[in-house]
């Protein structure tokens, strides 16, 4: 097993603070905090060194004792990683990211140190083209059952018959509203942007992410979420520049501000919407009736993964329906796997945030690879942010 230079390094200050903040706002418990920050691992390692805890043997392959995963904030049941460690002896270091571009940038630069990561549908073809993800060895993923997956959500993981990524969950991009502060019912992106400049003045957040922020501004005019047409993008830019002075923040970390009551309305992904609504019932999740984004997050393994055996082992573990169910209950995103849906409690399946009505889903578009990498949209975003 090749060793990354990162192996054994302590958690970085940013990540530590990240986890500390999650602990503070109650997204994770103290045990999870210890686990994710490595404080728990440190204790466990010390205990093992002095013989207090036996190292569990793993029959098939040497998995090493640690690996690292790159994923999104508030996206896993921390108990999953603790249980995986109990079963295999492999401690999982969790790296949290704010955007797909950031993940791509890290992987492009090389030596990311990850053995598993969670890319979104529209990035997979780019990763494949750049040759930085592994064609998955399906024999090592016995728990994955492609026949149980909804092809609408999973097709982008397979290119020319080769599977590069398997789905974790799907979701939508809508907006969350604190209905105590903004009582007027809203159903469209037009209302989102108009309210941001009126009652929601100084209290509205948009993502620090060109794909969704520009995409949802395009929806104001009914254009495609993925539009690359200069005249349509010019209209979206005009709207964004007009809204800019009224915004509370341009940030993809909106949960703390929504929870603290600083922000009243924000662009929002399904899973965050479900978590916010679960904890603060007056926060509603709205899908714009004009459409917007639907997405699938996948699991993939980088070609230069320092601990591929553990990456496969964790992925296979995560594909176990009984494990995946807990993941969905924790992060609030809907599953692509029929076996998992069978295990989910009825109130989850009936939750319109997770499983919206068909007529709301219909106009949604999957983000396209070209949308993410388009330099014109990147420059537009820079003009918006610097305005």
């Amino acid at each position, binding site marked *: 097993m090749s060793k990354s230079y990162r192996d054994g390094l302590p958690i970085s*200050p*940013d990540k530590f*603070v990240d986890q500390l*903040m999650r602990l503070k706002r109650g997204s994770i418990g103290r045990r999870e905090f210890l686990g994710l920050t490595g404080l728990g691992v440190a204790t466990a390692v010390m205990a093992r060194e002095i013989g207090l805890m036996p190292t569990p043997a793993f029959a098939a392959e040497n998995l090493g004792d640690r690996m690292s995963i790159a994923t999104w904030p508030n996206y896993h049941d921390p108990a999953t990683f603790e249980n995986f460690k109990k079963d295999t002896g492999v401690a999982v270091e969790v790296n949290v990211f704010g*955007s797909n*571009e*950031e993940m*791509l*940038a890290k992987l*492009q630069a090389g030596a990311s140190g990850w053995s598993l990561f969670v890319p979104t549908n529209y990035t997979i073809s*780019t990763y494949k*083209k*750049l040759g930085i993800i592994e064609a998955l060895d399906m024999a090592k993923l016995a728990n994955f059952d492609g026949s149980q997956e909804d092809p609408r959500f999973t097709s982008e993981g397979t290119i020319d018959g080769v599977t590069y990524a398997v789905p974790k969950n799907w979701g939508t991009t809508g907006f969350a509203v604190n209905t105590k502060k903004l009582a007027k019912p809203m159903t469209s992106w037009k209302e989102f942007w108009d309210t941001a400049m009126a009652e929601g003045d*100084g*209290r509205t*957040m948009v993502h*620090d992410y*060109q794909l969704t922020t520009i995409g949802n501004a395009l929806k104001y005019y009914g254009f495609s979420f993925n539009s690359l047409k200069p005249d349509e993008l010019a209209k979206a830019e005009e709207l964004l520049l007009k809204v*800019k002075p009224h*915004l*509370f*923040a*341009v*940030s993809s970390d909106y949960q*703390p*501000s929504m929870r*603290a*009551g*600083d922000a009243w309305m924000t662009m929002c992904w399904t899973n965050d919407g479900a978590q916010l609504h679960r904890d603060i019932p007056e926060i509603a999740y709205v899908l714009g009736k004009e459409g917007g984004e639907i997405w699938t997050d996948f699991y993939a393994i980088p070609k230069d993964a320092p601990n591929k055996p553990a990456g496969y082992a964790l992925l296979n573990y995560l594909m176990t329906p009984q494990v995946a169910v807990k993941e969905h209950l924790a992060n609030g995103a809907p599953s692509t796997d029929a076996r998992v849906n069978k295990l989910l409690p009825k109130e989850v399946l009936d939750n319109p945030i997770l499983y919206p009505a068909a007529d709301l889903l219909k106009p949604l578009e999957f983000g396209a690879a070209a949308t993410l*990498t388009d*330099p014109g949209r*990147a*420059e537009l*975003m*820079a*003009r918006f*942010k*610097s*305005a």
Partner: protein
Amino acid sequence: MHGNRFRHNLLTALLLGPATAWLVVFLVLPFIAITVFSVGERAPEGGYQAAFTLAQYANLPARATAFWNTMVLAPAGALACLLVAYPVAYYLALRAPERWRLILLALVVIPFWTSLLMRTYAWMYVLGGRGIPALLAYVGIEDIRLINTPGAVLLGIVYGYLPLMILPIYVSLERLDRRLLEASADLGATPVSTFLGVTLRLSLPGVMTGFSLVMILLLGEYLIPTLLGGGKVFFIGNALVDLFLQSRNWPFGSAIAITLVLVSVVVLIAANRISTRLSGARRVDLI
């Protein structure tokens, strides 16, 4: 004689070796790398693609707003820092009782032991809805927003960089020859003109050191505007982060980075010149 010189040279080499190696590895080599990147092109999927073009430099006006914001913020932030720091340094050096001085100085430095990120996060919570606004709501003042305002960014900057400003000023004031103050008073100067003509004048090297130190750090600042300003105010540091981590336009990011380095050098030299002229005699070397 000969052996002596050899030994002398060896000693010099040993003394300078670690610093030189450090600078070569962490300053010169990266600088060469970004210089090469800056004349390249963005690959279709992002990153760097070899080329020789000045297109990235020609494109610099696309980040003019970011440069402008930075050029306004950096001196303004440093000035705000100076206005808060000078009285503190003055008190510490000239007024504080001897036995308290060390403790007070330690209190200035101790927050520096915690990372700036941690301290800025703390401010996020103090200024956020569950902090001061919640207290204000308790006494009946509702819906006050403090976080993500220019004021919050200014507060974060002054707070974050204060020790860097206080310490050099303190040092220059501490070395001040008190007899000059007495002489000035004996010769009939008012306290105000003594302060302006003697104290302030002689502490100028410290002021300029602190000012340029804070200003140069502010030229690259991106954390405080992001966390306390809600990412709405865009500095050159933010432009760099986005170019490298979001749009992955490494060549353009490199061109901006080089421009920023050049600007910083110009600022340093200018500050050095001004300081030398104002204080009359002593040359201050910052680099």
